[in-house]
Each structure stands twice: as structure tokens, then as C-alpha cells.
């Protein structure tokens, strides 16, 4: 039976969640403001959302962001999974500790340093900056997140499954796609989602490595805010919040359903024995 919350608990709850969500609530509320002034309420309207559809620059930035996110997340997932496989599988080799330490380093490296060093690299190799340099930069810093997620999934993986597949005549590469990948897929998918969100989120590294025609949404928002916040910004941010919330809800429903299905199947199996 749930206990009646005490006044102290209730106050803590309200304070804590207000601290977290009040700014976002304000952002959303004012995206429906009639007035052009962000802080003065003048009635409900959806006109800023309509205006958004006609703001070519913002839409373009959104498209660049999604493109960069999808491509860099995919590349980071491939590279990160490979790195995780080597670190989890190769056993002890010379410099293994160094390598596993080095893969975690970008997690704690200041973004400014990462962005700057990549910029210096691109300048040194005389690479014109644009969408591809952002993609490479994002791949670099998000692949280590993927490696960490996939590695944790691999640590619980039963190697004898791969041996069984090979024993039954399956060559190693085919074994990876038929047996290993389906088993670690939740980890790989989570890694991709993480990499995609990180890329969507990033302002600092993208600013260092972008060029003409490759402005991402965070960069666009940031530069517009410096000229003054318009309700249009509120509207696009609300859409972003909506997108992220939807993603989280779908992901949790999927995992919950999978868990329920498994419990149900096990119950059925037990009934048949």
C-alpha cells in the first residue's frame, strides 16, 4: 500500500522537478505566445510554428543536423562496435590497457580541446570545412560512447554460441552477422541512438569544424539567440523536446513490451512442462 506522502517529501518532489523542468515548461508555453516579445504573454497562437515552416534557413539547419547525426552515428556505431569487439575479445595483447584507457579518454576530454585539435588537423591536411568535416568530428567523439555501450553488452555474451556456429560450418564473418550481431543488437542500437543524440546536441565541436553551408541547428539557434530570442526559436526548441520525448517513450515501451513478452513466454513454457 502506498504510504501517504509527508509534507517534506512532497515539497522535495515539487522543488526538484520544478528546478529541472520549469525552464522547459516556460520555453514551451511561450512558443504559443501571440506576442513577438518572448516574456510578455499576449494570448494563444500557433503562428510561430507556421512561420517556422517558411523559415528556409532554420529548416536547412535542421536538415544538416539530421544528416550529420545519422551519418556520424552510423559511422561511429561501426567503428565503436569494432573497437569494442577487439577490446572484449582479443584477450591480453601488448598495450591493451593503454588502448582501453585511450578509448575512454574522449569521454572526459573537454569539447573545446577536441574541436580545436580536429580543426588543426583539417587545416594541416588542407581539408575544406563543411558537412563532412562535422561528420568526421562527430564520429570521432561519439564512437567511444558506442564502444563503451557495446563492450558492456559483449561482456555478458556467451562465446560458445560463436564456437557452436563455427562448429556447424559457419565461417567467422558469417558467424558475426548471423549469431553475434543479433545477440548484441540492443547494445549496438542503443549506441547508435546515443551517438545520434550526442551529434544532435553538439554545439562546440560543430562550431570549430563547420564551414559555409554547413550550419547545424544548435549553431543556428545559438547565433540567432545572440541577436535576440524570437518565439520561433521557442517553437523549434519545443519541437526538439517533443522529438526527444517521443524517442524516449518509444524506446521504453519497446523494452517494456519485450520484457513482458518474455515473461509471458516463460510462463507459457512452464505451464507446458
Amino acid at each position, binding site marked *: 500500500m502506498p504510504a501517504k506522502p509527508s509534507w517534506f517529501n512532497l515539497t522535495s518532489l515539487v522543488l526538484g522537478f520544478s528546478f529541472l523542468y520549469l525552464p522547459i515548461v516556460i520555453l514551451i508555453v511561450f512558443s504559443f505566445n501571440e506576442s513577438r516579445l518572448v516574456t510578455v504573454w499576449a494570448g494563444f497562437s500557433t503562428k510561430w510554428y507556421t512561420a517556422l515552416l517558411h523559415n528556409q534557413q532554420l529548416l536547412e539547419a535542421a536538415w544538416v543536423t539530421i544528416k550529420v547525426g545519422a551519418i556520424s552515428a552510423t559511422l561511429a556505431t561501426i567503428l565503436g562496435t569494432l573497437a569494442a569487439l577487439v577490446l572484449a575479445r582479443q584477450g591480453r595483447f601488448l598495450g591493451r590497457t593503454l588502448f582501453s584507457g585511450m578509448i575512454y579518454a574522449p569521454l572526459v576530454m573537454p569539447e573545446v580541446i577536441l574541436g580545436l585539435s580536429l580543426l588543426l588537423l583539417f587545416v594541416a591536411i588542407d581539408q575544406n570545412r563543411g558537412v563532412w568535416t562535422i561528420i568526421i568530428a562527430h564520429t570521432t567523439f561519439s564512437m567511444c560512447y558506442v564502444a563503451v555501450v557495446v563492450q558492456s553488452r559483449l561482456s555478458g555474451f556467451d562465446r560458445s554460441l560463436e564456437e*557452436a556456429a563455427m*562448429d*556447424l560450418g*559457419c565461417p567467422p564473418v558469417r558467424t558475426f552477422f548471423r549469431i553475434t550481431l543479433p545477440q548484441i543488437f540492443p547494445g549496438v542500437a542503443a549506441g547508435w541512438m546515443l551517438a545520434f543524440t550526442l551529434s544532435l546536441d553538439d554545439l562546440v565541436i560543430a562550431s570549430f569544424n563547420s564551414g559555409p553551408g554547413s550550419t547545424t541547428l544548435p549553431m543556428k539557434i545559438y547565433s540567432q539567440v545572440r541577436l535576440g530570442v524570437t518565439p520561433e526559436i521557442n517553437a523549434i526548441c519545443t519541437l526538439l523536446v517533443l522529438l526527444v520525448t517521443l524517442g524516449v517513450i518509444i524506446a521504453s515501451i519497446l523494452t517494456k513490451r519485450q520484457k513482458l513478452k518474455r515473461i509471458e513466454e*516463460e510462463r*507459457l513454457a512452464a505451464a507446458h512442462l
Partner: protein
Amino acid sequence: MARKPLGPIRRTFLPWDDPGEQPFIEFRNITKRFGSFVAVNDLSLKIYEREFHALLGGSGCGKTTLMRLLAGFEQPTSGQIFLEGNDLAGVPPYKRPINMMFQSYALFPHMNVEKNIAFGLEMDGLSGKEIRSRTHEMLSLVKLEGFRKRKPHQLSGGQRQRVALARSLAKRPKVLLLDEPLAALDKKLREETQLELINLQEQLRLTFLIVTHDQEEAMTVADRISVMDKGSILQNATPGEIYEQPNSRFVAEFIGDINVLDGQITRKHREDVQLFSSVLGGHLSVRYPTSADVGDHAALAIRPEKMRISFEKPEDQSTNAIQGEVWDIAYMGDVSIYHIKVAETETLRAIVANTTRLVERPISWDDQVWLSWDSDAGIILTR
């Protein structure tokens, strides 16, 4: 402890006694090191076609490593492995006509029973029709027709074990490797499955190699047993020979229970040997072929079921008889194990079958009794 018959004794099947017979599998001077640990030490072993061979030993004795070397998951540090006379060096596991049933069963969790069994056939590039008929054949062989669409986690332990068996047999391998196949099953199911394995092996006429730490399992299923310790084979013989003529103290004590009395040989005439035991302070006679000679230190070993207990001293002079006191009785249902204290530092065990319903023990705690055994019941161990 319950005793079982000494395995399937097929008197006509003795290829290892025929010098003209070619081995089906041969390990030749195999050594496998993991770093500084020697898992398999200069080991040679010949296994014949249609033999059911058991590698028996405690954990870390190298039995699993030997099996994995044959499957191709490990490469020998030195030595060669032959299958039908062909060197297997450099042949990857997926190209060896050998299939293995894993201890964990290693069923693919994301595939149903049918897909699991069909996996190996699919790898062979068989037609869909043939895969279906072979899968069906395997399912009926292990009596799981109704479970085709189940996923592994929807099966009981015994059912999983049978799926694993069906999957490893589906490709009709030349050799089937069984890595502790029944370890996860309960005792009753394990005993049933052991008999099923024997039937299956005879029915399919395949060569089976089983790795186990369970001596009763090895005795039940195998034609020959290799008892292993520290990476070497101590004895390779039929279950009957292993039990009745163990070649060393380790083998004798590993298989079943045995009483061992240390002593020195005082007289020897052909197979009739007399041994002086300082613990008992007396002479014991035994009829057993041994290379040990007068003056050598040796041990006399007798299985507890070959001992008799009586209040009166046996009449027969050729029988060994020593006096002792009943120290403890372990009632096992079918038999009782009597611990008889025969000297201050020596307790011997005798097994008595409970042939009648037990109401009152004729021989009980603290009774003074005679422990006797025939001279051809014991064996001489020299190492």
C-alpha cells in the same frame, strides 16, 4: 554407493586389440600450453571408428582442452591430430567433419528449435526441401516434434539438451564430441539420457567422444575410458579393466571406492604374491599379475564390495581375514557401507547388500568382527 553394471560390453567390438586396425582419430604427442600452464602434456591416444570413448578426469586435467583441440577451437603447441589418417593441422573448425555438443548447449537464443537444428544444414548449402526433411528426422529422433517453433528459453533443461544433441547430429558428422553433455540434468533424467546416448550411438554407427568428470557416466556409456590427470592419460582401457585392474592408485581411487593397504612384498610365486602390512602387522595374500618383486614396496587394494564381514573367522585358509571393530555404518538403502577399524590408524570399508528388509542389524556398532576377502579379489598397485 549404488553400483551399476560395467557399461555396454560388446564382446565382438574390440578394434583396439587388432593390430591391423587403423585408428579413426589419433592424437600424436600432443602438447598444449597456455602461457606457463601445461594443459595437455605429450599425449598420444588412438580412437577407433564407432567407438564410444570417454575422457574422464577432474577439473583442469586437460580433458576439455583435448576435445577443443580436436574440434579446432585450440591449436596444439606441438604434436599432430589425425582424422582418418589426415592431419588436421590448419583445418579451421568450420571445415572439420566433427560436431560438438556444448556443455552450455549453446543454442542460438534468437532462433527457434527448427532453425537451430537446420543451421548446420543451411551452412552446407542443402536445398530447402532436404533441410526440412533432415530437420524433421532429427526432431523425431529426439522426440521433440511438437516443439519446432519454440525458442530455447521456452524449453526445459532436458528439452534443450535434446535440441543441442539433434543440432550436433543433423550434419551426420564423422565424430560427435560431447562436452559434459548431461551435467545440467538431474540424476534420474541423466541416467535415462545416458541409455539414450548409447542407443543413439549404436543406431547411427558414429564415433562418439565424451568428456566427463562423472565416473559412473563414463562407465555406463563408454566402450573405453581414458582416465586423465595433469594433462596425461593414466590408463586407457574398457570400463571393466579400469575398475578391476586399475594401473595406479590415482585411477583406483578415482573410479569408485577402494581400500588401499601399503606394504612390502615378502614372497612371490608367479601370480601368487604375499605382502607384509606394517599397519596390520601381518601378511596378506593376493593373486595378481605384477612386475613388482620381492622386497619392493607395493600396495594392496580391494574394492569394498569384495569384502565380507562375519562374526566367525572364515574356515578357508586361502582367504585373508583380519579382525576389527565396527566403527560406523552408512545405510544407503540398497547397500550399507561398514567402516571397520582394523588398526589404530586404519579403517577399511566393506559394502554389504541389504538383501532382506532391514529390521534389526545382525552386525552393529562396536561389534568385534572378521573382515575377509579372497586372494583373487585384491590387486597390487605399484604406483
